[in-house]
């Protein structure tokens, strides 16, 4: 993750953006081709995985702080949405927006003290926040329904899956757009400077606390939005399934690793590869998909610690030598 961001778009980048826009138009047209419900849901979950990865990308990919607490934003976004819809009888969209904003503010508030920690300590502390939030949510019976959770109002739209698909797509597009615009602004450069050398960044006058907190708040915002949409899709929210650390913290990080951190489209590409593959595996080998996931994680990380995209595009050696390059460099 040591790639500087480019200033003006090169020709190669223009091609990438052309493909991205074509992909977006294709994604908008896709539900009108009368796909099966299976594919509609599969792509909805691809988009959700991409939002979670894109969310982690702000704090982990660009700023270099490996947060392991993102599952807290997902769960809180879902719960704020659910509570506003069931207890205050708000409509879905304002509830979802409130969930995202709540998570952004929450991330900013916990970020102020936690972002002073570095490396392992930050990872552990954010994981700790996630576990504490889950406990509080499952303990606060009167508001959250405790361990049983809440039942949201059923989506009245006859094409409800299509509607959820578009909500996810819209949130994903927004997250990509924000990443794209910020990555080439002063803010993006500040993040990368912090990631590469925080002391030097501070020495040249970057307000590191401000930019780190901003990155974490954006992480909270988008993951909170995804949580809200997921709550409306699933209609039942319960602490154990929403605060699943493997699904909503570990997998998004793996997706960013596969696609390449600190890039605009890497997390999206990683999400496609990961989500399609894991959906396939869970159908082909039901019950064994997590065993494969663990194995895949280990192999990807040993052989392609810089991300599969970087492995395929940035290598200077080929064949077996390329495969063995990373383990050779990193061994004891």
């Amino acid at each position, binding site marked *: *993750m040591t790639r500087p961001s480019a200033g003006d778009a090169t020709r190669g980048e223009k091609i990438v953006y052309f493909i991205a826009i074509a992909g977006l138009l294709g994604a908008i047209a896709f539900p009108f081709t009368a796909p099966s419900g299976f594919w509609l849901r599969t792509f909805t979950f691809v988009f959700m995985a991409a939002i979670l990865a894109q969310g982690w990308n702000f704090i982990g990919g660009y700023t270099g702080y490996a947060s392991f607490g993102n599952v807290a934003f997902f769960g809180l976004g879902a719960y704020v949405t659910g509570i506003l819809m069931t207890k205050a009888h708000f409509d879905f969209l304002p509830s979802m927006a409130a969930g995202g904003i709540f998570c952004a503010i929450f991330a900013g508030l916990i970020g102020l003290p936690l972002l002073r920690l570095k490396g*392992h300590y930050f990872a552990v502390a954010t994981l700790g926040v996630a576990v504490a939030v889950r*406990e509080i949510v499952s303990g606060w019976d009167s508001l959250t329904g405790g361990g049983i959770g809440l039942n949201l109002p059923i989506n009245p739209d006859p094409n409800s899956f299509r509607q959820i698909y578009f909500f996810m797509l819209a949130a994903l597009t927004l997250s990509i757009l924000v990443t794209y615009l910020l990555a080439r602004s002063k803010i993006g450069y500040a993040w990368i400077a912090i990631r590469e050398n925080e002391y030097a960044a501070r020495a040249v006058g970057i307000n590191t606390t401000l930019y780190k907190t901003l990155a974490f708040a954006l992480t909270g915002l988008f993951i909170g939005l995804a949580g809200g949409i997921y709550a409306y899709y699933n209609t039942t929210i319960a602490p154990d399934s929403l605060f699943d650390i493997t699904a909503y913290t570990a997998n998004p990080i793996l997706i960013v690793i596969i696609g390449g951190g600190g890039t605009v489209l890497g997390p999206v590409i990683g999400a496609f590869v990961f989500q399609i593959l894991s959906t396939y595996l869970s159908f082909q080998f039901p019950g064994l998909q*997590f065993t494969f996931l663990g194995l895949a994680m280990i192999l990807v*990380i040993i052989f392609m610690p810089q991300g599969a995209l970087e492995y395929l595009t940035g290598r200077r050696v080929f064949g077996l030598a390329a495969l063995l390059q990373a383990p050779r460099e990193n061994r004891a």
Partner: protein
Amino acid sequence: MNPVQFAQTLINGLMLGGTFALVGLGFSIVWGIMNLINIAHGEFIMLGAYTTYFLYTFFGIDPFLTIPLSMAALFALGYLIERGVLTWVIRAPLLVKFLITFGLSILLENLALQVFSGDYRSVTTAYSGIGLEIGGVKIASVRLAALLISILLVYLFHLFLTRTRIGNAIRATGMDLDAARLTGVKIAPTFALTYGLSAALAGAAGSLISMTFPITPSIGSGYTIYAFLICVLGGLGSVPGALVGGIVLALLQVFAGFFAPGFKDAIGFTVLVLVLIVRPEGLIGKPFYSGSEQ
């Protein structure tokens, strides 16, 4: 809370603290020496617990006598995992090492789920219910024995690290990898040995846990998180620190469980975050191998 309840809770906390010290010690050593957060630590504990369960259920071996066997089995497993997998990423960035142990943890948990099934199991011996009673305070004999065994193992490990040549080599590697190599320490086998010993301690902790708590293949991640807490509370890579951290966490848990059941982990983690912010080196720790940055 009357005095008897207070004394009972205190005693329960102290007895649990011994096992927690063992839970945290192996994790702390791997973190301190190898600069590696081993998310799979809890799965080693789970495997240790199953070793005791199967040896007791199928061969009738007394659970306490299975502890050396479970330590030996887990040592072998840990040694092989380090030689086969972790050695290839040991110089990689922090996140890469963090994630690879996450992968290991998912793999071990799901393999265990396939092999052992998700059923809850427990080890109940003829003497499980026996205990002493002093002035209304009950002390379960199994838990008392677990405390004594934990203290013994922590002490033996401390002696090993400080009094033997290999122990010194391990500590030297943790302090400065390149300097240790220059003085003739072979790094790869030392790391494998460290990781194997950590797994062996986790195995012993698992054996003790199987005697007091029900076990399933998914108990691992909870213990990994406890290991974090213990390590942060006591200080990184410190043997006495693990003992202090284990007892502090256990006391926090039992008292939180008394006053606010359902929030005991929330309280534990709030304390963790506060300690991290105020005193990142732990309550009694000193910056050992403060390799938190890479």
